[in-house]
């Protein structure tokens, strides 16, 4: 199987098929992550599109010392931050504040809450992104720090706090479920 970095080299040599393969590999992963940051699916899809355009345009600046996914997520996170920073909430958005977000629509109904919905509720965007890149994308601490443009110390501390916070919430949820079950409410 051709590696991402080999596909980058082929793309730089002029192969559009090579870059199309990179899009195929990352489009769903990026959309899954960006849905957690965007207010609606259309914004998340726009962010995916912008990310691939930026990556294609500035492909020559990709440093092969890093993984392609690190570089791509770095672009995606910047695009998402710019998109969310520039938009102004209108009346319709405020009215729909309690409505389920785009992420909820993608998660099948289950007895227990998806841990990423819990994370979205508990953590700020940077901490959420650090957790996602570390535990879903299997990036190293160094790569997470690079993607988020933070120090490695910040990354370590944030991951530790995120884990503690989520673990405590999940443990509390589990004990609540057990208590309800013991009373025959479930």
């Amino acid at each position, binding site marked *: 199987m051709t590696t991402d970095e080999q596909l980058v080299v082929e793309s730089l040599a002029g192969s559009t098929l090579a870059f199309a393969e990179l899009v195929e590999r990352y489009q769903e992963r990026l959309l*899954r992550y960006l849905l957690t940051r965007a207010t609606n699916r259309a914004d998340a899809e726009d962010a995916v599109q912008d990310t691939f355009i930026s990556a294609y345009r500035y492909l020559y600046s990709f440093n092969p010392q890093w993984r392609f996914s690190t570089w791509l997520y770095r672009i995606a996170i910047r695009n998402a931050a710019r998109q969310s920073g520039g938009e102004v909430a209108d009346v319709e958005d405020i009215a729909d504040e309690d409505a389920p977000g785009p992420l909820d629509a993608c998660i099948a109904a289950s007895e227990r809450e998806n841990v990423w919905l819990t994370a979205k509720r508990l953590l700020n965007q940077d901490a959420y992104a650090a957790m996602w890149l570390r535990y879903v994308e299997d990036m190293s601490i160094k790569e997470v720090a690079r993607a988020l443009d933070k120090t490695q110390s910040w990354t370590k501390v944030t991951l530790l706090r995120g884990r503690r916070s989520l673990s405590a919430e999940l443990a509390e949820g589990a004990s609540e479920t057990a208590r309800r079950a013991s009373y025959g409410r479930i």
Partner: protein
Amino acid sequence: MDEFENRLKRDAEEIRVGISPELRTRIDASLRATEQIRPVPESPASGMNLWWASSLTGLAAAVIVIVLINWNRPTNELLPVEAVASVPDNINQNQGLYRPQLKTVVFTKPLEEELIRLQADIERARQNVKEDIDFTF
């Protein structure tokens, strides 16, 4: 990988996003319309040209500064030749004739008074010594 990390991964996979054909078409279309930016290779001559350009600019700036500084500078007025006092030809012959009238300058007066007092003291001491000698011998 512990149970917590497994759950994070498993729950992430449970997020079913699905890429719509419209999105893929949009991405492909926008990529076709996008051109890759390629760095322009720097030619060896461009470094030399830059050096020459910066040197000439510096030189021109220096010339301009020198001209501006000297633009309104006052010139040294030269006296006409006739106005310059000439040395008399017989200056060596008349050298002994000219005796300038020197007056005591005010600030030397205290020194002169001190000198007079010292001379008086010396005279008094000389008289005392003379008297002593006379008594002794």
